[in-house]
């Protein structure tokens, strides 16, 4: 059953200390900044966060990490030009890092959402990121056994939702949204626009509403150059 929330703080109000939280986005594209900052205001601690990156600048995921709320992060690419808040926590050994090749990260999330107990992937075979993992030769090629990443919550960003939680995304901001929506017990989505049920073409729905528990509207603004920017 879908709940449509009035504001982002209400949307994240069930996230408790110690929760495992999937956070969408690739860099800033698709990162649900307002939901993450609501989670920061809520004050939940000791979180395990699964996200491709470890935050940019001082907003969103970077701010959550900077505030010491994230005990562990599972990601593929924490080091960026503007990841200084993560860098500091990592060098101080105040955050645990599980580094996962990006495709394995995506497939592990997809496996959780689709009930797969584990899968053999060629990615990472023979590297230090497969150290200690079960391996197997299949048709003469090396594979590594990887396990699903299930979560308590997912925080993602989409372009539009309808009244039953069907979602469409925008360009490369789609990235991890659809698979994360499927892999969490409770999926919370910030959208730029809520449309009436029947307002999305059933052929074009990317995430069916069955994967969505909470929707909150965070209106986007059209910037002078025609691109969208979410209102703060």
């Amino acid at each position, binding site marked *: 059953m879908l709940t449509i929330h009035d504001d982002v703080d209400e949307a994240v109000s069930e996230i408790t200390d110690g929760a495992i939280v999937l956070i969408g986005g690739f860099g*800033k594209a698709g990162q649900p900044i307002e939901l993450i900052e609501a989670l920061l205001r809520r004050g939940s601690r000791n979180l395990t966060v699964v996200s491709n990156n470890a935050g940019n600048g001082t907003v969103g995921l970077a701010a959550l990490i900077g505030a010491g709320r994230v005990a562990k992060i599972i990601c593929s690419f924490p*080091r960026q030009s503007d990841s200084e808040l993560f860098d500091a926590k990592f060098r101080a050994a105040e955050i645990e890092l599980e580094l996962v*090749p990006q495709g394995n990260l995506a497939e592990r999330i997809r496996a959780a959402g689709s009930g797969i107990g584990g899968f053999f992937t060629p990615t990472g075979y023979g590297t230090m990121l497969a150290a200690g993992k079960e391996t197997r030769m299949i048709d003469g090629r090396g594979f590594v056994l990887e396990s699903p990443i299930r979560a308590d919550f997912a925080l993602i960003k989409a372009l539009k939702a309808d009244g039953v939680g069907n979602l469409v995304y925008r360009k*490369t901001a789609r990235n991890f949204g659809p*698979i994360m929506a499927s892999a969490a017990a409770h999926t919370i989505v910030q959208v730029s626009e809520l449309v009436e049920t029947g307002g999305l073409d059933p052929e074009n729905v990317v995430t069916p509403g069955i994967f969505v528990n909470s929707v909150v509207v965070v209106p986007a603004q059209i910037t002078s150059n025609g691109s969208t920017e979410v209102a703060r």
Partner: protein
Amino acid sequence: MTERLTRNQLARLVAQDIPSGAYVNLGIGQPTLVSDYLTPSQNVTLHTENGMLGMGPAAEGDELDEDLINAGKIPVTELPGASYFHHADSFGMMRGGHLDVCVLGAFQVSVAGDLANWHTGDPNDIPAVGGAMDLAIGAKDVFVMMNLLTRDGRSKLVEACTYPLTGVGCVTRIFTDMAVLLVTPDGIRVRDTYGCTFEELLRLVDLPLLAPERESMLKA
């Protein structure tokens, strides 16, 4: 005798080796230069790991859109015939062997085609792998673009990688400023040399290499 190749000459040489109609991923950094030398008649389709086929050139001015970026988080554009898909589908596309070519940078490549390009192994470095391991094992052809020598003159083509591996036996062709090298079942074959002779190259890398099958030519 020819000259060593500049970065742009090297990018052009890589572009010339990409087959017509290919689906190609150019990763991040130096390999993205290759796109400047692809010709319209090559009809190459670019893939970016963050969920897009049909990526166009970098966005400028009014084209800038924070929802349309490439793997290096640089704003790009969309060409007719483009498509968007989620991350599991994007990496399934790589892992499933559907890309014809990917072009990657490298710290080291071994004579067996092992690739090291994601981590120096320095314990003070913050490790970050991104899609490098997926690309290394996914594309039908994995081209590496790098300088042949490190700043202190050591060969980046090695007997065995000393840096942590990205992928095992995955590299098929190596484009460097001093030579283009083909990874073959018999070993590394030199295709062309630039700014050195085959014999000089052998001394620089201190590895057994197979001689060019034809006269070296400056193509770039």
